[in-house]
């Protein structure tokens, strides 16, 4: 973070008891907002899971075989604290959620958080590959489609179409052609490097289309802006105008979009990992949900939410570094709402 430290008295913030620079105030405020959001999300998600555990009847039915004696079932209920008053159960459930204790998996008895964390690297690998591919192709396409006239309109059709393609269908079609018919690439697992190709392509299409489309639109807007005309009229070369004036301004909405895409990427990962039998958290979450293994689903929701909010914090800071206007505004946290 290369925020300039300014020392003039006007920039100091007098609201807080400590005298800190306006830049630091903005950054601290931003981080606090995101932390508050993590707290709110964990609380909401945990409350929802608590409600669902109690809505779905006797939880012991989820992991004790049907023929078990009532004594054993009652002992189990005691161990799980299911005989305590509801508010007490709720308070302990929520507070345990905050320290990462989601209970043991109802299927295999290992701590739910460990089950999720063990699968996280595979998902991160896939998501990183997809977001890199999407960003590079999206930006390249937007730059390449800067033509005038009907070519411009024609080149915008492809990203629009790309956004309409369902992820699961694209994956199935790629699998049919390249794995089933041609046999060039493996259709499942993550044992070889080539197994990464089809899942990455599938996961990257939606974000790549969104990036290409948004960047293309914002380039059009920025190119027509007054400050670009001013820059040209004062004799700045075409390259300098693009580098200094067009690119930073046109990139801002795209950076905000990447933050938004983080959330959609998690949903996409559930689909793609299930389709290609990729051993990541998304596939684990789907299997757990179908087996009604709520502790693992709970851990998954909280871990992914923290990841998404963390990425959004990085995006906020990046925007702050690029756009000096944001540093003086009092409401930075609200810029991408």
């Amino acid at each position, binding site marked *: 973070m290369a925020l300039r430290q300014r020392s003039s008295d006007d920039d100091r913030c007098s609201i807080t008891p400590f005298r800190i620079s306006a830049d630091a105030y903005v950054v601290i405020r931003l981080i606090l907002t995101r932390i508050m*959001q993590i707290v709110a999300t964990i609380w909401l998600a945990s409350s929802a899971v608590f409600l669902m555990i109690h809505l*779905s009847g006797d939880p012991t039915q989820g992991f004790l075989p049907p023929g078990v004696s009532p004594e054993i079932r009652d002992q189990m209920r005691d161990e799980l604290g299911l005989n305590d008053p509801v508010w007490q159960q709720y308070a302990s459930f929520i507070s345990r959620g905050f320290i990462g204790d989601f209970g043991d998996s109802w299927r295999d008895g290992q701590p739910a958080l460990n089950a999720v964390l063990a699968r996280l690297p595979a998902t991160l690998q896939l998501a990183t590959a997809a977001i890199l591919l999407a960003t590079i192709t999206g930006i390249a396409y937007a730059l390449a489609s800067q033509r005038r006239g009907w070519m411009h309109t024609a080149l915008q059709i492809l990203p629009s179409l790309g956004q309409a393609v*369902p992820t699961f269908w694209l994956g199935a079609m790629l699998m*049919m052609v390249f794995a089933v018919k041609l046999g060039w690439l493996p259709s499942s697992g993550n044992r070889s490097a080539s197994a990464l190709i089809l899942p990455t392509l599938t996961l990257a299409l939606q974000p790549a289309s969104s990036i290409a489309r948004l960047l293309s639109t914002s380039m059009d807007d920025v190119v027509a802006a007054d400050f670009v005309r001013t820059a040209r009229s004062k004799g700045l070369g075409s390259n300098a105008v693009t580098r200094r004036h067009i690119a930073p301004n046109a990139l801002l909405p795209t950076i905000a979009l990447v933050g938004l895409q983080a959330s959609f990427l998690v949903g996409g990962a559930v689909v793609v990992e*299930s389709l290609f039998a990729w051993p990541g958290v998304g596939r684990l979450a789907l299997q757990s949900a179908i087996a009604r293994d709520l502790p693992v*689903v709970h851990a998954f*929701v909280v871990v992914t939410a923290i990841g*998404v909010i963390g990425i959004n914090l990085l995006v906020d800071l990046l925007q702050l570094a690029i756009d000096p206007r944001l540093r003086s505004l009092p409401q930075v946290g609200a810029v991408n709402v």
Partner: protein
Amino acid sequence: MSDRRTSVARWTGNWRLVPLVVLIAVLLVAPLMMPSPTAQSLTDRLTPPLGFGGQRLGTDGLGRDMYARLVVGATNSLTVSAIAATGAAVLGVTGGLLAGMAGGWMDRLVSLLVESVLAVPFVTVGLMVTATIGQSTQAMILLLIGTGWVTYARVLRAQARSLSRSAFVEASFSMGAGRRYVALHHILPNLLPVFLVVYFQQIGAMLLWSASLTWLGIGAPINQISLGGIVRDGQDLLYNGWWVSAFGGLTIIYLVTALNLAADWLRLALDPVQKGHRA
């Protein structure tokens, strides 16, 4: 001179409406003359489509007519999406207007809720719901509303904020207009174009989301014909019945594209400031 030019530009822009009109016509007329979408015929199973040695769009793994299934599936999926988009609109417009016009703690509360919903991917909430009550169309619609309202809230909040700080609103206040008058006569009418564009885009988005949920087995139940379900049915038949999945997905792409084009058409038709004349 500009009159004729804008009217020509508007007329040439109308092709964007054609795919949606064609779609609605097909969905209305087709059910009058097609076989039952649920009638099974194991002797006719996996008949290829016309041009590949079969007829119409072929049959699926249980010998059911693909054309009829696609028509019914498209109708069902569109209905679910439209209901969900409408429900989300009611919730999101209310939230966005409250946040954008009232400001203060109301704005912070709505913004915090919006950001929290955005941090939890809708598929994960779908997983939680399925883990509890199993598959149901009603639960899926509620889920889509619960995640979809944030789009309206974000857009309308931003729009209402910038409108309430604009010069003509200030002018209206300076002439003695009350808050209620300004809200009803200046802000709401100016929000309508934005709202309509988002609404059409959201129906398409809801269609993609509901199809994803159904494909994962956590959306509409198996006995209901839906586009996501058709792609899922074809998943095991990729080798000897590619057309089941392929046509299901192509129908989804067509529907979503038609809705997005209609949204573009609306934006161009309702935008009084023509492109290229923007400040």
